[in-house]
């Protein structure tokens, strides 16, 4: 990699991360906060519970996200092994 342009890679990644935060965070904010009269607060969501069939996949996905975030080693190894067999 040309060392003079090496900094471009993280810049591109970070700008795209910044943009992602810019368009994703407002969604969850307006879903849970904006205009308390219209939208449903977290407390009230608990009052009107989702069916467990809808809740379960979300919970599993969130648990997987946190789990793989804390321990990405196994995941990375798995994909590396997979890539090794392919190449």
């Amino acid at each position, binding site marked *: 990699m040309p060392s003079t342009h090496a*900094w471009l890679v993280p810049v591109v990644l970070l700008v795209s991360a910044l943009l992602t935060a810019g368009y994703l965070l407002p969604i969850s904010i307006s879903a849970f*906060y904006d205009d308390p009269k219209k939208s449903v*607060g*977290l*407390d009230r969501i*608990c009052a009107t519970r989702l069916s467990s069939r809808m809740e379960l996949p979300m919970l599993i996905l969130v648990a997987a996200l946190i789990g793989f975030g804390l321990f990405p080693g196994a995941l990375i190894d798995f994909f590396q092994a997979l890539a090794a067999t392919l190449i």
Partner: protein
Amino acid sequence: MNILLILLPLLPVIAAPLAYFLAARSRPKGYALLIGITGAGFLAAVWLLSGAFSGREVSLALPVWAGFGLTLRADGLRALYVTVLCFMWLLTSLLTPEYFIHGHSHSRYLLFTLITFGASLGVFFSDDFYTALLFFEVMSLASYPWVAHEEDNKAMRAAATYLAIAVFGGMSALFGLILLKARLGTLAFEALPQAVAALTDKGSLLVPGLLVLVGFGAKAGIFPLHVWLPKAHPVAPAPASALLSGGLTKIGIFGILVLTSRVFIHDALWGQILLVLGCITMVLGALLGLMSVNIKRTLACSSVSQIGFITIGIAMQALLRHENALAAQGTVLHMLNHSFIKLTLFMAVGVLVMKTHRLNINAIKGYGRNKPLLALAFFIGAASISGIPLFSGYISKTLLHESLLEYIHMAPETGWPLGLVPLVETLFTITGGLTFAYMLKLFIAVFIEKNGNPQVQAHYDSIRPAMNRTSGFSLALSALVLLALGLFPDALMTPLANLSLPFLRTAPPAHAVDYFAWVNLKGAGISLIIGIVVYLVVVRGLLMRTSSGGERRYVNKLPAWTDLENRVYRPLLRLMTSGGTLLARLLEDALELLLFRLVLRAYSSMAAVFGGREGKRTRIRLKHLADDPVQSPREMIGEAVQSAQAAPAPDETEDEADVIVHTSPDIQGPVRDHWVHGSPVSALVVILLVSLMVAGFNMLLSKYF
């Protein structure tokens, strides 16, 4: 017991959802869990702190965690600050039940308070920048619900600003750390000094360092990224305000301390940058605080100002080189004092707000007249922050002031550049005066003056007791700690400061400072006299107006154009988003156009090749692209498709004319419609171009990954 280092940050995070569901069923149980966890945390932290005093080494490396591994350590400063944070969280938890009696969303508050608690402890335990950034980001995002808690327009706007600066700061710090890691090969705190020493081009560290400074400085509230703080701290619930102001700002300072003591070791340029930023932050915060008529806003602006004092202390650590012990002591002690001061003051204001629901000092005027505990706690906090002798703030401000004087005295002998320091010393004294002036303003308004409306005053007088026993205990304990620190500086403050010095890579000073020497008392006295004059002339004179009812009211005469957020950052962001959108739009259209022409060419060329030479060419009817450049490609494709579908089978005789139009696209005249078709040669060219692009892209990719 090393496992404590990960349990302390992790258990609150795990307990957070529990507290959430528990509190949704029964509030007292939720609060009990919060108090239990913060209390247990405090006990564990005290154990770690006692270990740090006795030299017991507690560290933990978790190599598998989070990809790159986490490293944690609890030595002097880190053990001390974890204890301070646990203490703050415990005391505010004791206040929380009464504060939230009429509140809403209490379970959400508990959820995020616990997550923020764990993450904040994690930052202070971290032994490398990667671990620190991970916890920092969690803390940064998890504290958003504090600011947005009230969910009104003001809170949502402040929260948006908070989040934007937090995300921007986090990204900036991440970028800085990536560059730092590339230059130094390590982010471990202990390995950084050696890596820096081995580096020949030290100048190349400045840009990464500044990027990291943006991230941590934004959290600390250093100019010019302080704008979120005077807006976010006042709208949060009071227990959270205390933690934001007293606790989370120090996490930003922690990062800057690491940078200064391990990357920019005795670096004069770094010191000068911090000195200028700290000086502006210090003066600006005090001026804003003086103007404000909202009690929590004044306290938040005061936090900005005090962070400025602390930043100056850090700057002096860099500038004073090997003689920086006093600056280091002053920095740590001012951090400590500011934490306890803002804990006390914001809890006192919380006690006041939970009964009055007002923050404007004209409205709450006279509320504290017959509430001795509240008045005493607020007085101790105010006296400490103003640097009145015998109160804790005096000690740390004296140390910081000493370090400035030390530089001024030593500079001519050693040939160091004197630079800004004499000016900073003057501003330091004046800002000390301003601090006293705005605290006088608050104290006199709330605890001495009578309310302009006698009925309101009678109502205020009837509110007794001001708080329940738990809240009272919490407030009293916080004020008591502050009082004890100020009364016994040699027994309490000096050992704590010296305990922290190894982390700042400096040794205790050769001779102890006589805090109550005449020269130091004189410095504090000058500040206090300036404060009284400013209070009498500026606050009572310029910043008050007689209302129609004959009442003297406090007014905020701060012109709107001074708002950096509304005048600079938000317009800039809007400009950037609209500019970016325009650019992306143009790029998208240009690409579409290019692709469209390319595909069209390729298609007709291939048709020409594979469709046979007998003239049975497939053709698409379209408008000349150059004729109508404003038309978007999508519309053109639509039209082209439509016309292609509607077009009658072309006449063989038209074929020759098509070639002419194609080879001379500049043709003028009424003919707008024409045929595009290709030849075997253009098909080859297109295939070649596409393969070249793919190959180039591959090369580019393989270079980077």
